[in-house]
């Protein structure tokens, strides 16, 4: 290994440093948005106030809902209902129209009528897609970039363990009063070690979830090159084929749902409910009805069961249950999606996610601070990394807060150059994020404190605007039973406080730190 450096550890050091510098900002963005995605439905409730409904268990008649389909849905090849639960109290309803575009609606869980809701992508429509693809849809490029970041994170974790010589003796060590560089590295090591299993699990399970995107040839090859066949064997997907053109009436979907849940509950020994009610080729004699328990409340494993019925006769066409290895794989994927109803664990995930953000941010900061007071500090490369780090860390938090503020400020029906209100919110996010990079590039290290103030002000503004525009301030939301709204507000208040505290702490030092003699050797 002589030609590479002074051995394996040094190769790992090189890998850790440069992979971190090059992909740190992507990893931070993905981890930050992933952390928020843990509470995506709660963010939806905050951003779409019309869906602030206290959930109660009700029998919903999908037959009734199907009898009131909009005209362009009547011959849709894809109609989907999402069964409401405590975190998503409305009935989700979407369908593909004749022109191939999707229409999404929130139905009132009591009346089944469409709710007139604020036009916003909110948590599920923006924060969640950003987490998995940075919202770059072209050729799945965003998913590949995020996949590369996930792979890089696994490599960084392993190489970090190799180069960290004092895993045991410095496990609990944090010395904030030491030099900034030392304190940053302590915090990097501490945050990395405390959440290590979680940090391994997240990128790995993320890659697993998108295995069909990342390894399509390998997965399709055993099925004669047909990826749809692979999806059918692995996930119980069902292809009803093309419409025949012969009109037919749908049998009772409610009866099929009862039968599916009875089959699953018998197999499992405990009640198992469906989350999805999907009708393919509606109105045609090739229609099928598809049920899946995508996100069970009481278990980690997702999508264990899929039942498919002939839409016209109500006969069972497919009763799919995940086989053992598929089950194990679904456990790993479910651990990433974490849609189960385990609140202490959800908060632990949130803390773990924030810990991951701290780990990534302090890693990038350490790279910068180990060049403080050196000539390298003035190189274009250093300045670029500095601006990317500031914009990538505080900048994306500012942009997220701006997204929330824009949501509360934009009037209903706002449009600009043919962009919808929901799109304008997203533009606000990107514009503000871009501005934070410019700000960071021009002000350099001073930008940290100012951007922390911006977070504090925007987060406080978001809380205030929620109270003013919806009347649901924290106490009102609590007394009305809207825990999601109160929770988002509380986290925003804590964010504002923490950002203001950081801003005060971050007032730029009057003189550059001296360079310790030990670091000028070589």
């Amino acid at each position, binding site marked *: 290994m002589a030609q590479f450096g002074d051995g394996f550890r040094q190769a790992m050091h090189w890998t850790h440093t440069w992979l971190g510098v090059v992909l740190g900002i992507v990893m931070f963005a993905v981890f930050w948005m992933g952390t928020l995605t843990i509470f995506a439905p709660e963010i939806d409730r905050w951003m779409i106030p019309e869906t602030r409904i206290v959930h109660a268990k009700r029998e919903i008649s999908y037959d009734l809902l199907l009898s009131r389909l909009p005209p362009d849905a009547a011959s849709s090849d894809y109609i989907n209902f999402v069964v409401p639960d405590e975190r998503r109290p409305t009935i989700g309803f979407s369908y593909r129209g004749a022109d191939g575009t999707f229409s999404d609606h929130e139905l009132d869980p009591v009346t089944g009528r469409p709710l007139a809701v604020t036009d916003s992508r909110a948590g599920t429509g923006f924060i969640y897609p950003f987490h998995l693809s940075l919202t770059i849809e072209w050729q799945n490029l965003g998913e590949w970039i995020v996949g590369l970041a996930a792979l890089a994170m696994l490599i960084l974790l392993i190489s970090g363990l190799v180069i960290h010589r004092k895993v045991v003796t410095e496990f609990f*060590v944090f*010395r904030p009063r030491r030099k900034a560089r030392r304190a940053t590295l302590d915090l990097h090591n501490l945050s990395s070690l405390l959440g290590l299993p979680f940090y391994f699990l997240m990128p790995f399970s993320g890659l697993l979830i998108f295995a069909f995107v990342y390894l399509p040839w390998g997965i399709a090859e055993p099925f004669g090159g047909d990826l749809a066949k692979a999806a059918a064997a692995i996930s119980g997907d069902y292809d009803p084929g093309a419409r025949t053109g012969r009109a037919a009436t749908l049998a009772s979907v409610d009866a099929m749902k009862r039968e599916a849940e009875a089959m699953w509950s018998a197999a499992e020994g405990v009640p198992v409910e469906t989350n999805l009610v999907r009708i393919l080729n509606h109105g045609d004699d090739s229609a099928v009805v598809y049920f899946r328990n995508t996100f069970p409340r009481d278990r980690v494993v997702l999508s264990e069961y899929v039942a498919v019925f002939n839409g016209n006769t109500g006969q069972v066409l497919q009763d799919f249950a995940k086989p053992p290895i598929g089950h194990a794989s679904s456990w790993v994927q479910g651990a990433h999606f974490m849609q189960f109803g385990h609140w202490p664990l959800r908060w632990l995930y949130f803390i773990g996610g924030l810990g991951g953000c701290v780990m990534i941010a302090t890693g990038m900061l350490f790279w910068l601070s180990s060049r403080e007071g050196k000539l390298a500090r003035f190189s274009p490369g250093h300045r670029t990394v500095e601006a990317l780090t500031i914009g990538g860390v505080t900048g994306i938090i500012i942009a997220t807060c701006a997204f929330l503020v824009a949501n509360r400020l934009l009037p209903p029906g706002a449009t600009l150059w043919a962009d919808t209100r929901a799109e304008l919110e997203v533009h606000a996010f990107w514009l503000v994020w871009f501005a934070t990079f410019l700000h960071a590039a021009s002000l350099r290290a001073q930008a940290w404190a100012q951007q922390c103030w911006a977070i504090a002000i925007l987060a406080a503004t978001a809380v205030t605007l929620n109270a003013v525009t919806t009347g649901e301030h924290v106490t009102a939301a609590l007394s009305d039973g809207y825990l999601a709204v109160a929770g988002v507000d509380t986290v925003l208040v804590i964010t504002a406080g923490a950002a203001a505290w950081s801003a005060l702490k971050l007032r730029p030092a009057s003189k550059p730190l001296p360079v310790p003699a030990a670091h000028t050797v070589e």
Partner: protein
Amino acid sequence: MSAALLVGAMLAVTLGTALLALSQQRHWNAVMGTGSKPGNLPQRLGWLLISVSLVLTILRDGGSFGALSWPLQAGFGALLTSGALTWMPGVMKPLARWFGR
């Protein structure tokens, strides 16, 4: 019952990581001053408590959820321990006195 098991598991893992930290001379000195040694007991008891927290977590959550929640609980407990060592090592003194020599 479920809440008690959760609190018990969190307490056990926090105390366990605190004892593991105290078993290291560096942290022992930070809490008790120089001139004494922690001995072997804090380390053994620390691992015991951490194992107890695993058992309590599995009793509460089962293996499937427990495999996810226990590592995060342990990390959180260790975070509390690190915070105490950093900003208020004094709070660990009563604990350390049990093992003081």
